[in-house]
C-alpha cells in the first residue's frame, strides 16, 4: 500500500485562501482517484504561505480490473444492430457469447477494463486538479497561460512504499514534478529532496517551516498568552485574526510591544481595530482596567537580535498609524462637541444611499419620522426616539468611520455622548444596527429598539418598492437579516403593533419621495393625506378610498385614471405590502421552527385576526403548540377533523350549510345533551379569554371539549333517519367547528 505525497510550491498564497485551498486539494485529488477506482485509507492536507501539501495514506497500488457483462441483440437481429452492439461494447464478434433467453438466442459481451497503476491515475488526477483549481481569484504569469493563485514554482508528486519512493512524472506547462522543495524563504532557502511524508515534514521543520496551520496557530496563541500573562496582561481573543496570522508565517515568532502613552486614551475599539486592520496585531489588555496597553505581532523568523529590530520597526509603524487615528478622533470630537455633529448630517445629503431610494439624509428623515410613529407602540419617549434616529447615522461622515467602516455605530455612540446627548439616545447610535446576525443581541432599551425597528422597516419597504428583493442565495442588501431583526426585536421586547399599518405607510412614503419631482401638487397632497389616514385608521386601501371620496367632485381633484400617479401608487402599494408581509411570515416560520414550533401551527394562527401583530401571533401559536402536545388537545384535533369532515360531506351532498340552529330540545341522548352543555361552557370561557388574549385558558377550555365530543361520537349516529334529528346533529357539529375555529384555524393542522 503506497503513500502519496503532493506539494504545490508557489509564491505567497493569500492567507484568507489557504485553508479552503488545502481542503479543496484534498477533496479534488481523493475524489478524482476514487472515481478512477483507486481506494485509499486516509488523507490530510496542509497549507503554509508558500505551499499546499497533501498526504494520502494506504493508496491501492492500482485500480481493480473491472468486468462488465452486457446483453446484446438476438442472434437473428439485423446485421446493423449487431455491429452497433459490437462497436458500443468494443469487442469483436468471436468474443461474444450466445445464451438462451426468454425470446430466443441472445448475444452477450464481456467487457474487461484492466486496472491501471496508481501512478498513472495520480498523474492524471493531479494535472486535472491543478488546471481546474477553484481559487477565488487566479492569475497568469510570465509568458505562460497556466493559472494559479500566484506563480507556481514546483511540484512534488511522490509515491512511496517499503521498497522506496518514486516520482510520479508530471509536466504542467513546463513545471516538472519531482521530489525537491525548499524551506523557509530566509531561514532555510536551500532546496532538499524528500522520500515521503514523514521525511518531508521533518526536513521542513529543520528548514524552519511548520507545515500545519493549526500547529502554527497553536504555537502563536500559546506564546502570546504566556507572554501577556508574564506581564500581568491578557490577549484579546480573535480567532479570525489568529487564523489569518498563521497563514502569513511559516515560522512564527511572537513579539510583544508597547503602545505609546499618548495613544492609550483612544477608545479601546479604535486601538484594536487600527492594530488589527492595518498591522494584524493582537491587542493586549490590562484585565483590571480593561485598557489596551500593548500589542502582539507575529514575525516570520528568528533574528540574531531576538526580534529587537523587527519590534522597533513595528512599533514605529504603529505609532504613525495611531497618530492618524488620534488625529481623526480629536477632529471628530471637536465637531461632535462644538457643532453637535451637524456638519456630518449636512454632508449626508450628498451621499447616495441607493439611486432609487435617495440620499442618506432622505433615509434618515424617513427613519426619524417612522421612529416617532413607532414610539407610541414601543413605549419609547417620542422626542428621544426621533432625536436618536436623526443622529444615529451621523458618524458615517466622521473621519474615523471613513477610515474604519467597521466602527460605524460604535463611534456614533462615543460622539453622541461627547455631544451631550442622553445616554439612551447615544446608545441607539450603536445598537440600532443590532441584531447583526441570528446570534447577535437584540436591542432592549426602548429608544434603541425603536430606531432599530424604524431603520430595518425603512430598508425593507424601500427595497421592496423598488423590487430589489432577495432571490435564492442572493441577498446583497441583507434583507433577510433585517426582517429577522424586526421579528426578534418585536418578540423579545413584546412590542404590540400592527405591522401592516407601518409597512403600508412606509411604502407610501417611499412612493411620495420618488414622485416628489414628477407628481403635481394635488397628487402629492392626496398621497400625504392618505399617509395621515393610514396613521389614524389602518391600512392603505381604506385610507386611500377615504381620501378619494373626499376629493370627488372637486374641481382640482387629481387624475386617478389609468396610468396616473395616484392609480399607479394605488395599484402598487397593496400588492407590495402583501408580498412583504408574506416575507415576514416566512422568516417568522423559519425562526420559530428553529425554536421547535411547527409551521402548520403558525399557519393555523395566521388565519386569525391580528396576523400582523407578531407578538400576539406568536403567543397564540405557542399556546396552541402546547395544547397540541396534551392528550386532550391531540385527540380534540382528531375529533375536530372528524366533525369537519362529516359536515363538509353532508353540506356537499345536501347542498346546504348547516351553520346554525342546533337546539338541545331535539337532543335524543345524554351524550348529545352533555355536548350541548360542554359547548356552552366552552363558549362562555373562550370568548372572554380570547378578549383578554389569554390563549392558554381559551385553548384549555377548548381542549376540555375532548371528553364530551368523544362521548358524543361514541354514542350517536349522525345520520339518523329522523331528518330533524340529523339536521340538529349536523348543526351541533357546526358548533364544535365554530368553537374550535374561534381559537385557531385547526383545519390547517396537519396529521
Amino acid at each position, binding site marked *: 500500500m503506497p503513500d502519496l505525497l503532493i506539494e504545490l510550491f508557489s509564491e505567497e498564497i493569500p492567507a484568507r485562501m489557504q485553508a479552503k485551498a488545502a481542503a479543496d486539494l484534498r477533496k479534488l485529488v481523493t475524489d478524482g482517484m476514487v472515481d478512477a477506482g483507486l481506494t485509499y485509507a486516509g488523507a490530510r492536507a496542509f497549507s503554509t504561505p508558500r505551499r499546499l501539501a497533501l498526504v494520502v495514506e494506504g493508496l491501492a497500488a492500482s485500480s481493480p480490473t473491472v468486468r462488465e457483462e452486457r446483453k446484446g441483440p438476438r442472434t437473428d437481429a439485423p446485421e446493423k444492430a449487431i455491429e452497433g452492439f459490437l462497436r458500443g461494447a468494443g469487442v469483436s464478434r468471436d468474443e461474444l457469447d450466445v445464451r438462451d433467453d426468454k425470446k430466443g438466442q441472445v448475444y452477450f459481451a464481456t467487457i474487461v477494463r484492466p486496472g491501471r497503476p496508481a501512478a498513472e491515475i495520480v498523474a492524471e488526477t493531479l494535472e486535472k486538479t491543478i488546471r481546474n483549481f477553484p481559487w477565488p481569484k487566479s492569475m497568469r504569469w510570465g509568458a505562460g497561460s497556466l493559472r494559479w493563485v500566484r506563480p507556481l514554482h514546483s511540484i512534488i508528486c511522490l509515491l512511496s512504499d517499503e521498497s522506496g519512493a518514486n516520482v510520479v512524472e508530471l509536466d504542467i506547462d513546463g513545471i516538472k514534478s519531482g521530489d525537491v522543495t525548499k524551506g523557509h524563504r530566509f531561514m532555510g532557502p536551500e532546496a532538499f529532496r524528500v522520500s515521503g511524508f514523514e521525511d518531508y515534514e521533518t526536513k521542513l521543520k529543520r528548514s524552519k517551516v511548520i507545515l500545519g496551520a493549526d500547529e502554527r496557530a497553536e504555537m502563536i496563541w500559546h506564546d502570546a498568552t504566556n507572554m501577556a500573562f508574564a506581564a500581568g496582561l491578557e490577549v484579546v481573543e480573535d480567532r479570525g485574526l489568529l487564523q489569518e496570522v498563521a497563514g502569513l508565517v511559516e515560522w512564527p515568532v511572537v513579539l510583544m510591544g508597547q503602545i505609546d502613552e499618548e495613544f492609550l486614551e483612544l477608545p479601546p475599539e479604535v486601538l484594536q481595530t487600527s492594530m488589527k486592520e492595518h498591522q494584524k496585531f493582537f491587542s493586549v489588555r490590562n484585565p483590571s482596567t480593561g485598557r489596551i496597553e500593548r500589542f502582539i505581532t507575529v514575525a*516570520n523568523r528568528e533574528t540574531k537580535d531576538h526580534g529587537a529590530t*523587527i519590534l522597533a*520597526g513595528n512599533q514605529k509603524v504603529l505609532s504613525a498609524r495611531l497618530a492618524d487615528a488620534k488625529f481623526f478622533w480629536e477632529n471628530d470630537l471637536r465637531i461632535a462637541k462644538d457643532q453637535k455633529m451637524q456638519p456630518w448630517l449636512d454632508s449626508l445629503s450628498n451621499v447616495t444611499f441607493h439611486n432609487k431610494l435617495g440620499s442618506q439624509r432622505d433615509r434618515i428623515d424617513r427613519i426619524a419620522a417612522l421612529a416617532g410613529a413607532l414610539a407610541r407602540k414601543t413605549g419609547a419617549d417620542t422626542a428621544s426616539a426621533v432625536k436618536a434616529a436623526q443622529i444615529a447615522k451621523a458618524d458615517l461622515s466622521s473621519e474615523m468611520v471613513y477610515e474604519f467602516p467597521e466602527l460605524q455605530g460604535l463611534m456614533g455612540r462615543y460622539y453622541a455622548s461627547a455631544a451631550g446627548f442622553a445616554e439612551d439616545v447615544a446608545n441607539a447610535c450603536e445598537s440600532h444596527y443590532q441584531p447583526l446576525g441570528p446570534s447577535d443581541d437584540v436591542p432592549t432599551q426602548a429608544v434603541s429598539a425603536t430606531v432599530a425597528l424604524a431603520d430595518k422597516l425603512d430598508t425593507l419597504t424601500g427595497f421592496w418598492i423598488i423590487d430589489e428583493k432577495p432571490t435564492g442565495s442572493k441577498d446583497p442588501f441583507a434583507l433577510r437579516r433585517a426582517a429577522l431583526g424586526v421579528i426578534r426585536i418585536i418578540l423579545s421586547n413584546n412590542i404590540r403593533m400592527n405591522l401592516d399599518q407601518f409597512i403600508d405607510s412606509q411604502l407610501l412614503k417611499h412612493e411620495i419621495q420618488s414622485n416628489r419631482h414628477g407628481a403635481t401638487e394635488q397628487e402629492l397632497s392626496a398621497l400625504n393625506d392618505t399617509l395621515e389616514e393610514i396613521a389614524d385608521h389602518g391600512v392603505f386601501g381604506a385610507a386611500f378610498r377615504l381620501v378619494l371620496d373626499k376629493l370627488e367632485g372637486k374641481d382640482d381633484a387629481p387624475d386617478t385614471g389609468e396610468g396616473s400617479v395616484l392609480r399607479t401608487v394605488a395599484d402598487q402599494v397593496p400588492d407590495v405590502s402583501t408580498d412583504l408581509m408574506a416575507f415576514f411570515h416566512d422568516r417568522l416560520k423559519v425562526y420559530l421552527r428553529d425554536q421547535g414550533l411547527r409551521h402548520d401551527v403558525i399557519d393555523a394562527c395566521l388565519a386569525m385576526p391580528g396576523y400582523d401583530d407578531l407578538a400576539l401571533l406568536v403567543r397564540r401559536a405557542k399556546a396552541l403548540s402546547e395544547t397540541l402536545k396534551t392528550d386532550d388537545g391531540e385527540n380534540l384535533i382528531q375529533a375536530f377533523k372528524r366533525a369537519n369532515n362529516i359536515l363538509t360531506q353532508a353540506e356537499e351532498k345536501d347542498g346546504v350549510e348547516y351553520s346554525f340552529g342546533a337546539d338541545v330540545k331535539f337532543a335524543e341522548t345524554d351524550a348529545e345533551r352533555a355536548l350541548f352543555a360542554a359547548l356552552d361552557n366552552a363558549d362562555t370561557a373562550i370568548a372572554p379569554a380570547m378578549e383578554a388574549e389569554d390563549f392558554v385558558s381559551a385553548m384549555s377550555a377548548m381542549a376540555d371539549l375532548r371528553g364530551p365530543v368523544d362521548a358524543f361520537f361514541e354514542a350517536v349516529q349522525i345520520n339518523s333517519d329522523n331528518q330533524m334529528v340529523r339536521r340538529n346533529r349536523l348543526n351541533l357539529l357546526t358548533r364544535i367547528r365554530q368553537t374550535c375555529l374561534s381559537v385557531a384555524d385547526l383545519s390547517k393542522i396537519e396529521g
Partner: protein
Amino acid sequence: MAEESSKPRSFQEIILRLQTYWAEKGCAVLQPYDMEVGAGTFHPATTLRSLGSKPWAAAYVQPSRRPTDGRYGENPNRLQHYYQYQVLIKPSPPDLQELYLGSLAAIGIDMDLHDIRFVEDDWESPTLGAWGLGWEVWCDGMEVSQFTYFQQVGGHDCHPVSGELTYGLERLAMYVLGIDHVMDMPYNDPQTPIALSYGDVFRQTEQEYSRWNFDVANTGVLLKQFEEAEAECEKILSEDHIDPKTGKHIIMAHPAYDQCIKASHLFNLLDARGVISVTERQAYIGRVRALAKQCADAFVQTEAGGATIARAGEG
C-alpha cells in the same frame, strides 16, 4: 562591519543604488515622464509597454502628484508631490521575488535582521482599466513596496504578463535612514558642505501647492481643460493612420495617451478642490478610463505594441 558601511546616508543615495541595481539586472534605466501623473504606473513605459507581446524591462523614478494628500509640508508622511521608483519587466521572470529582495539588500536592508512579508494586495486602477494580483511587501510591518503581476491594462489582457514593482521612495528611505519626519530626511550626503534636507528642497513647494490645490486652482479653467484634453485625445485617435504628409503609417498612440494623462491629473485637481460630487466621481473616472482604453487599443496596433505593421506602399 561591512553592513554598517553599506548603509546609505541620503535619499538620493537610495535612488542611485536602486538605479545601479536594476541597471545591473538588465533594466533600461529610463528618466521620469515629463508630465504630471498620480503614480509611476501612468508613465507610458509601464501603461503602454505592458501591452502587446514585445519583451520589455525598464526602471525609473517617477515624480507623482496627489493633490488631495497635500498637508502644507507639516505631516510627517504625507506629501502632494513625492517620488515612486518603478520597475516593469515583461514577461515577468520566475525569480522576480528574489530580484526584488536583492534590491532591498542593495539599499541597506539587512535581510538577517528584518521581517519581510508578502501580504495579499490586489491592485486595481479604475482610471486605467487595469488590474493585477500581487502583494504589498511589508518590512517589519511597514508597507515598503507594491508587487503586481499585471493581468489587464486598458481593458486588454496582458500576454505575456508584466511584473511591476513600485517603491514609495520617501517612506522606504525614511525607514532605511531612521527618519521620523520626511522634511528632516537628508536629501544629499549630510557630510557635504552644502547639506540639503528633503525639507530644504520641498517644504516651500508643498506649502505653495497645498494652497493652490485646495483653495486657488481655478476650477472653471480646470473643467474646461479636462474637456479639451478629452476631446483632443479622441481627435488624435480618430486621425487617419496614414500620415498624408509623409505617407507613413503612424498611429499617434503616445500623443493621445498624453491627453489621457492630462485628463486624469485634471480630475485629481478637481477632486482636491472638492467640486466633484460622489456620483459625478464615478462618471469622471469612467471618462478617463474610456480614454485609457482607446489609447491601449491604438497602442496594440503599433509596432511597439507588438503588431506586425503592413507599411504603406509595402502591402
